[in-house]
Structures are given as structure tokens and as C-alpha cells.
């Protein structure tokens, strides 16, 4: 309980800081040009804050749910190919099919994420060991990456690569409040569907068969989690690009707050994911490169060492 209050506080602080920084641009306007001040706050910083919040919560929650479902802490949308699938879906929809409209991109990305997750289930199996899981994820990520590059190379627009580059690494900049609300309207119901399965995901710790014996419809649970995760990830990726490693790290930290109950960790994972992405987004504003750093770069720089530590820890544990 105290941990949750702390997380709420962290969310609130990260939100306020995200709105306020960089302060040197914003604060002088408060007294001098209140209308411009309000515009910057509402049309630039609020959408950015909301998108980081929604995307972070989606990555944390779906990461926690997929890890619980596959009984594997290495499962997360960034590594298992779901984000890559979503990116491919959006690129194919936008460039190959020529449907640049926001809704079409979102639907394309959701379809891509869903395909990647179904492929993962087929390749790795229902309760995969870490090796099969990582191999399947590597294969799916490689295929979606190559296919995305191919789709861009074949795109009629000569600027396709350039356009997509910024988006692919993830960014919350230059999005409207409408886009942020759309992302929220699509992801929140999906996250709610997953949240309702928290108890079933805890029971799944005992195995599929025991969860079934307790009265949970495990095949239906699996379908629900995969479809809802694809919807949440697809919607976020279509707007903000593929941001890595939050879906891996946030659930891991969340489970340490719930005595390793993977289902109970869903909500804390969402909160931690949101705080992480909001903080990463704040960091991007202070990169000394004269322009905004893609947020995916920040999360990868923090996430990759963590991922290696997790993999190495499992290896040493098994004495390999």
C-alpha cells in the first residue's frame, strides 16, 4: 500500500516536472504573455505528458501481463517482437497501402502487433523456457525489422526513411492533444481488460492445468491478454514509435513490490512504466545535441544493461 502511494506521488511529481521543464522558456511567458503560456502548456507539453503516461503504463502493464502469461520474466513487448510488429504494421499501412490517416495507422499497428504475438505463441510455445523465448523474439524482431526496411525501400515517397527515422526511435514531441486522447481512448479499455485478469494471472503461477482446475478458462485468458496487449501496444507505437525496454524493466521492479505475484504486479508495473517513460522524456529535453533526443535512445541506454544483468543472472542461477 505504501509502495502504491509512493508510486502515485512519483507519478504526480514526474507529471509536474514534465509540464514545467525546460522552465527557462515557459516561466517568463507566464506574466508577459499568458495566452502563449497556456498554449504551450496545453498544446505542447500536456499531450507530451499524456502520451508518455499512456505509453509507459501500456508497456508496463502489457509487459507484466505477457510475462505472467508465458511464466517468463524475459517476455516483454520490446523483446518478443510485438513493438517491431506494430511498427511494421504502421509502415506497411502508411507507405505500402498509402493510408496515412491516424486511425488506419493505428489499426495497421494493432494488426502487426497481434501477428507478432501470435507468431511468438506458435514459435515459442505456451510456457516457453527462456532460450526458446529469446530465440523466437530475435527471429520475429529480425523479420519485422527487415520487412519494415523493405516496405520503406519500396515506398513511393523518397523521404520515407527520413520521415520514419524519428518516429521509429520513439518520441512524444509534436503530437496534438487529440492524438493523445485517441491513444488513451484505445489503450485504456484494453488495459482495463488485462487488469481484470490479475487474479487469474496470479493463479497461473501454479501452471495452466491448475489454473484451469480453479475454474479459469485458460485458452480464453490467453486470447484476451494477447489481443488486449496488441491493441494497447499497437495504438501507442502507431503514434509514438517503438520505445524499448520499459516493458521489461517495469514489471520486474513491480514484482518486487508484490512478493513476486505476477498478477498483482499489473497495476504497479503500469505506474512504474509511466514514471519511467515520463522521466526518460524529461531527460531527452536536456541532451546537448541541439535537438530532441529520441526517447527510445534513453530507455535503451538504461534498459540494455538491465536486460544483460537479467539474462546473466538467470545463466549463473542455472550454473551454465
Amino acid at each position, binding site marked *: 500500500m505504501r509502495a502504491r502511494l509512493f508510486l502515485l506521488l512519483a507519478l504526480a511529481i514526474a507529471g509536474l516536472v514534465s509540464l514545467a521543464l525546460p522552465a527557462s522558456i515557459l516561466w517568463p511567458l507566464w506574466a508577459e504573455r499568458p495566452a502563449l503560456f497556456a498554449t504551450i502548456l496545453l498544446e505542447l507539453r500536456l499531450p507530451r505528458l499524456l502520451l508518455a503516461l499512456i505509453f509507459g503504463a501500456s508497456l508496463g502493464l502489457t509487459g507484466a501481463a505477457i510475462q505472467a502469461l508465458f*511464466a517468463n520474466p524475459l517476455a516483454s513487448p520490446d523483446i518478443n517482437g510485438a513493438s517491431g510488429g506494430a511498427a511494421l504494421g504502421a509502415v506497411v499501412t502508411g507507405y505500402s497501402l498509402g493510408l496515412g490517416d491516424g486511425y488506419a495507422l493505428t489499426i495497421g499497428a494493432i494488426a502487426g502487433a497481434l501477428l507478432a504475438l501470435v507468431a511468438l505463441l506458435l514459435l515459442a510455445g505456451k510456457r516457453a523456457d527462456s532460450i526458446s523465448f529469446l530465440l523466437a523474439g530475435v527471429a520475429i524482431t529480425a523479420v519485422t525489422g527487415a520487412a519494415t526496411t523493405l516496405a520503406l525501400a519500396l515506398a513511393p515517397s523518397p523521404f520515407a526513411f527520413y520521415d520514419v527515422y524519428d518516429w521509429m526511435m520513439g518520441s512524444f514531441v509534436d503530437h496534438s492533444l487529440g492524438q493523445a486522447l485517441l491513444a488513451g481512448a484505445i489503450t485504456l479499455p484494453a488495459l482495463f481488460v488485462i487488469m481484470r485478469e490479475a487474479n487469474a494471472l*496470479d*493463479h497461473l503461477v501454479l501452471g495452466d*492445468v491448475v489454473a484451469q*482446475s*480453479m*475454474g479459469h478458462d485458460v485458452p480464453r485468458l490467453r486470447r484476451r491478454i494477447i489481443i488486449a496487449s496488441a491493441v494497447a501496444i499497437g495504438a501507442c507505437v502507431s503514434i509514438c514509435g517503438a520505445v524499448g525496454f520499459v516493458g521489461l524493466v517495469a514489471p520486474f521492479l513491480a514484482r518486487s513490490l508484490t512478493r513476486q*505475484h505476477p498478477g498483482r504486479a499489473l497495476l504497479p508495473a503500469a505506474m512504474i512504466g509511466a514514471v519511467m517513460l515520463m522521466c526518460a522524456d524529461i531527460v531527452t529535453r536536456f541532451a546537448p545535441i541541439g535537438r530532441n533526443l529520441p526517447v527510445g535512445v534513453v530507455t535503451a541506454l538504461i534498459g540494455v544493461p538491465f536486460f544483460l544483468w537479467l539474462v546473466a543472472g538467470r545463466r549463473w542461477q542455472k550454473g551454465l
Partner: protein
Amino acid sequence: MTGLHLRALQLAGRFGPADVDLALGTVSFVIGPNGAGKTSLFHALIGHGEVSGTLKLGEIDLADLPPAVRMRHISFMPASRDIAWPMRARDVVALGLAPGLAPNLIDQVLTRLDAVELGARPINSLSTGERTRILIARALVSQPDVILLDEPLANLDPAWRLRVLALLEEEAQRGAIVLLSVHDLILAHHHHGDVLLVDQGKLIGQGRPDVIMGDAPLSAIFGVRLTDRGMELADSNGGAA
């Protein structure tokens, strides 16, 4: 409520169809060689996979109860002792507690299995035998009417095998129906309750051990025969042929 009644229970391609009646307050053993369908029988009983037929506990249809209700009626312990997450053993037992039941049932069942101290440790740091006791505790904690255990005695030392059997008898005395699979034919032969003999995905028979476990079925199905000293291979020349 008279007992557990299975009618035309079938797990597509794996087991059945079978009709079985198990009376309240009884402990029954399932025996059969490797791959005979013992686990498939359990899967059919809990509705895992493509299951058809009916499964009634008295008048209650067990097929479509919500988890909160079902957990008070039936529990299942699988043969696998693996738990993916490093949870505390007591939390693993608590997962089996049906909503609305008092948490002191967890302490009670841990005490009965002499596992109070194990409860504080991460489940993956326990030995296989200790983990087995924790998983048995998980299956018993909600005091369900039907207790299904797949190989609960595997990995246990001799004293714990006897203690667990005594515990299961206690469960039967409070009115539960206990069904467990065992590989130990000598143990099954001395059982005072029913034995269910399973082979090639079929229920061959149900009844008292001396009726079900005659020389002919044992040598045909298991390739062994029981002797005064224990057991020997049926095709060995022990001087009996």
C-alpha cells in the same frame, strides 16, 4: 450429496469415455503404466483440453462454476513441481485459498504438513520433496470436496509418504473424495479403498485391489507380478513358470 459422478467423460484422443462413481469420504488410487492415461484422466476431471461428458458432485455440475465457488469444491495438484516465479512458499499455498475463506486455514495446513518454517522461504529454494509438501498444502488449503493429486508421493521420503497418506485419510474422514495416482503397486495392493486401473487411455476397472490387481491384468498391463517378497518381472524365470 452422494459423491462424484462421471458420465461418458472423455478427453479427445487421450482418455475415455469412462463412467466412474466415487463416494464421499473415500481415498482411491489410480494405477497404470507410463503413458497409460493417468494424467489424462485428471485433465478430463478438471476440464483441461477438449473434454466431453458430464462431471457432477451430487447435483452440482462442476463444469461451469466461477473460480471462487469451484475452488471450494475441487482442487488438483499436477505431477510437475515447477513454479516459475520465486514466490514465498506460504504465498504459493495462499494462492489455493478460495476467496472468503479465513487466512488461518493457511497456517493450519502448513502445520499439518510440518511446513511452517518452509513457508517463509522462496519456493524455488526448496528441495523437490519440500516443494511437494507445499504443493500438497496448496491443494488442501480450501478444504475442497474433491481432491485430485497426480503422483503426490513421488519425491517424498518413506516417512513423508506415510504421513501424506495419513493426511489424505483425514481429508476423507471429513467427507472429501480423494483420488491420487501412484506408481507403487505394492502400496496400491495394500490399499483398503478402491483402485482405478488405467491402460491405453481407457479405464480398465474400478474396485478393491484384490479384485482389480489379479495376476493376469498385472502381468498383461504392467509386465510384473506381486510375490510374497514384493514384486518381480512377469517374464522372468523366478521358478514360478
